[in-house]
């Protein structure tokens, strides 16, 4: 358990901090080439920086891929 009370941060405080920065966010989208839904996400690194990446959602396409 943390002994540093000044460093304690609740999930709510962390959520408020993260909500303040929306510049990187993107609505989920469908890639017409494969029909899958994609989402933009990021992970907080130990040094406080962020790495952004995309995830493909699901086991099958959301829509019929283009040309098929």
């Amino acid at each position, binding site marked *: 358990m943390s002994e540093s009370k000044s460093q304690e941060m609740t999930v709510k405080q962390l959520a408020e901090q993260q909500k303040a920065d929306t510049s990187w966010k993107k609505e989920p989208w469908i890639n017409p080439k494969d029909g899958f839904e994609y989402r933009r996400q990021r992970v907080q690194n130990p040094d406080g920086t962020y790495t952004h990446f995309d*995830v493909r959602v699901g086991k099958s396409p959301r829509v019929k891929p283009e040309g098929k």
Partner: protein
Amino acid sequence: MALSGAGEVGYTEEIYYDADGDIASPTWVLMPSVQDVQVTASKNVAEIAVRNDKEVGVVPTHTVREITVVLTKRNGETNYDALKAAFEDNTKIGVAAMTGPVATNGEKGFQAEAYIVGWDDDGAHEGNSVSLTIRPAANPTTAADYVTISS
């Protein structure tokens, strides 16, 4: 999740949480000092008993998922306090149980909006463990699903 090897069955290498609680565009934070992760899923079933049938059959209905995470307490671990507060306050979080680092291309996992519904504390000292039980939230903003990291 498409399995690429038998070793992935019931096995997750990294688990993350999102304080915002919406997994459409989350900011994942690695859960600290994880000892063990169990991702389980079971089906509720309707039993079909018919006098002339030799066996009672079942029809699967709802899927019940649960993620159990065992953390080791270490001094200075601020994420532990955040997770404890989320449990006490019934705060919805996002959770990602991944086969590896979440930003690595090709890693797979299950992501859901969820609540911490169990907090089994082994003791207050450094080195003691705490077991968290996490269950998907009803009426999520973004539906839970399996994902594959694509970039």
